[in-house]
């Protein structure tokens, strides 16, 4: 929807003027590095955590990874694991996998500081089926191609939050606009044919990963997405930090989610 509004406004501006861009040389303030935690517990894989530091905005070097942390993931059933450092800044459990209805705890200790979070693993969202529709193109929104459509059921008796992750030919779609989350406040129980805006060609594979996420994770991804898509224009709100769910000022999010995959091949 947002994309639609932006597109529309741009078109209006284009017709009324000639909007152009110019790179500005702004001297930006610098801050002390802050810790960035990307922690994921799902029902399909062992828990993993990525740790790094923020970098100055104009830096072109990759952010510095954190290799000296103690990372512990546990649940309310008494399971606990200290994650192993597998790669630079990448920690993974060899024992803990997400189970629906359990509460998960995260503790990260770095340089004498402790960062904590906890979340309940939400129930599973069932994907009913995937399909696709052919558009010949030339209608502004669609170029020529096959567009995947999603059919799934949103349980009406609970507040649910979803994250949609797409793969085309087993490659993750990873543009900032591909970060898609939604709540179910105004979703119908039956979502019959939600269209994904990716034109596919014959023989392409399309894979959908539907995540049930927590409210906190939804807020974090929603904020992050609006930050990434903020164009500073008239309808934009002031850019702001994505509010995470980890204590002690850590950036990032402890994402505890259950997920399901489905795929199709265009024939």
């Amino acid at each position, binding site marked *: 929807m947002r994309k*639609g509004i932006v597109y529309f406004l741009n078109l209006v501006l284009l017709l009324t003027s000639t909007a152009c861009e110019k790179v500005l040389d702004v001297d930006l303030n610098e801050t002390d590095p802050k810790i960035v935690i990307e922690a994921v517990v799902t029902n399909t894989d062992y828990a993993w955590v990525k740790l790094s530091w*923020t970098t100055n905005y104009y830096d072109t070097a990759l952010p510095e990874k954190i290799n000296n942390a103690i990372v512990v993931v546990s649940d309310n059933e008494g399971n606990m694991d200290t994650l192993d450092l597998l790669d630079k800044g990448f920690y993974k459990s060899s024992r803990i996998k997400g189970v629906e209805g359990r509460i998960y705890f995260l503790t990260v200790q770095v340089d004498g500081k402790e960062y904590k979070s906890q979340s309940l693993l939400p129930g599973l969202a069932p994907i009913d089926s995937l399909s696709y529709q052919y558009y010949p193109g030339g209608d*502004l929104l669609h170029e020529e191609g096959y567009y995947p459509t999603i059919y799934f059921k949103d349980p009406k008796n609970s507040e649910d939050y979803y994250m949609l992750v797409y793969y085309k030919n087993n490659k993750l779609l990873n543009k900032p606009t591909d970060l898609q989350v939604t709540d179910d406040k105004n979703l119908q129980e039956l979502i019959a044919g939600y269209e994904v805006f990716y034109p596919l060609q014959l023989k392409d594979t399309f894979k959908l990963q539907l995540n049930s996420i927590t409210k906190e994770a939804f807020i974090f991804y929603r904020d992050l997405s609006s930050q990434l898509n903020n164009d500073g224009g008239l309808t934009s709100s002031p850019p702001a930090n994505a509010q995470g769910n980890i204590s002690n000022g850590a950036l990032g999010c402890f994402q505890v989610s259950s997920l399901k995959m489905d795929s199709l091949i265009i024939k």
Partner: protein
Amino acid sequence: MKIFLKVVHFFLLLFLYTNVFSQKIEFKGRVKSNTDEGLTGALVSLKEADKGALTDLNGNFSITIEKGTYTLSVFSAGYKDYIKKVQLDEDVAITIVMEEDITELNAVEVISERTNVENTDIGVNKVDLMQMKKLPALLGEVDVIKNVQMMPGVQVTGEGNAGFYVRGGSADQNLILLDYAPIYYSSHLFGIFSVFNSDILKSVTLYKGGIPVEHGGRLSSVLDIKTKDNRPGKITGILTAGTGIYKLSVQGQLRSKTSYMVSVRRSIIDILPMVLSSVDPKQPKSILFFHDINTRLNHDFSAKSKMFVSFYNGRDHYNINNFFSSTYTNTTGTLGWKYLINERLTSNTHFVYSRFAYRFGLNVGVSAFELRNGIEEYGIKQDFRYNLNSFNALNFGISGTYRNYSPGKFIPTDGNSMFSPIKLDQLHSGDLGVYVSNTQKVSARIALEYGMRFSIFNRLGKGNEYIYDGAMEQANIVDTIHYKSLEPMKTYYGFEPRISGRYLLNENNSVKLSYDRMVQYMHMLSNTTAPVPQNIWMPSATYIEPQKSHQVAAGYFKSLLNNKVEFSAETYYKHIQNALDFKDNAQLSLNPAMETEIRRGFGWSYGIEFYLRATTKKVTASLSYTWSKSQLKINGVNNDKAYFASYDRRNSLNVLCSYDLKPRINIAGNFVYSTGRPMTLPAAKYNYGYVTGSYYHERNGYRMPDFHHLDLAVNYYPKKKLKKHTPIKIPLEKHFSFSIYNVYGRRNAYFVYTRDNKDNPNKKEVVMVYLFRWLPSITVDIKF
């Protein structure tokens, strides 16, 4: 109570004081047009005594003076100068009939100017509608709001935006009135033009301070716009064809006592997409236009009883290939009745209606939807002017308003929609204002205008109120209270004293002071860069307290060279209680608990404004310079630290100049400069998943580049020609205007954002978007 008695005592003393000194004679009268209409704002002066007065709304004036023989002169825009010798030996009342000046030129330069020193107005600016038409205009369309934006103390959002900010107040703190009816969204084309057609305006006055007690409900300013009400006797009109807009307005008389005005304006920017889609069927079929229709009917029942009906409808409609559509509409109506009860007492009754509605539609398969919001207002105002004696003129009255707010509807438009509808409850409010003020000449040097407005506001049912557990900001709703239709849900009161005074140092110099207390009971929830039509208006309620402001101002006014040069300097300090802002990433769309997104605190602003205006036979020039600072401190925003308001600009300078090169050729230009507005940029970045997030450590900590442009225009007035073969023999007066906007092609930042460098995704950059460079335009208007 004690304070109240003291105040009464003080006023009583003032009355006595004036009576002791009233030993001169009183020269009073009425200035009217040849159709018996009282002329407001005409300057009546007695040359030898160097004394003058402005006529009030009914055309009445009064001057206290010593006996003698004087040259009486009366000036009023659009009328021929009236000059006559008068012998004044005793109290006398006369009636002056002004003859209309068909050419409507030149005479205006003299109007009302000496009054700048003499009247009690402080913080008041009027748009010079005559000069405005000569100035260069964006896309050739003269826009009154663009001229308001060039006044001292007024800030803009950015290029081509018709929003404005007065003395540190947000955009929703301006009360914009079109023939007494409020306009809730005053822009077309997302801000490029304002909704006001300059061809039909009679007067445009901005009150930044010293706001008359008859107005209330907004903290920072009143922009009072009135349409033409003259009775031309024959059909006159003006047809304008510009680069972006066509318009036609006609005025005429139905019978001797009834006159009308009809005006239509339409943009023609949709011609380009229309042509494109007819040539190439693959091009999107687009509807892309706005229109305005203004009508006004004046009728005189008698010399004492007059009424008018004014109607306005303006609409923006954009539809691209039926995929996107965006429509917004303003509709207002006013019924006004003026009745002279007796020589001293005049009654003014106004019924007003105003409605703003916005729709946005997106039509894509099962996710198709339509989004709607709006506001509607019914108002009535009964106003009295009572000329107690030549030293005291009272103004008192009562006004009532009822409003319906539609904060949002989300309507799925596909039969198989994935969405369920969301309909936020309509909200209702009613308010009442009672006011009284007195304009008093205390002595030859001192004049005062003081009064009080008392307002009561009620948030009314039918509606729901949430009860929160703990702080409202945490948004834990534990209970809901339901209210029946018209049941009061929450009541607020406001005492709004206003006072302004003038002390005449000598005939050409005066100093003035003012104090204003204002209360605002409705708020536009806007966390966007500029006001946009999807911004929602909300009434005050339990969790949204009224915004209140104190403003003190002082000014020095000077007139030089027989008023050919006029200078003023004003300084002000304004403090705002319950100023609104929003938490980070506030969700202001379709949120039933909207109040949980609001954060409240204080705002304050101070500044100094200079204004210089010089008029000679050939040149009209004005210069305004403002230094100001506007800050907010809101709990829950910017880590509770003070920050600059997004419309804070340290310096702004506006220069307007018009020069009659030859009798039929005029050149005009304006230069606009202001400090760049504040913006928020990241201090650090981080990798998360496949994206790069930004870390912000302060709100509005950076500034956009300075904003400036120079615009030039050449005006050509060909000789009048008498058309012989038309049934009505009327002279056609043509005016050609060629203008260039942004002559030196400055790239002014329209907005700024951050993005990945195209070649190196690890590199980030700050990018500005700019709109217009060298925008030429041509406009032709024909008066008949």
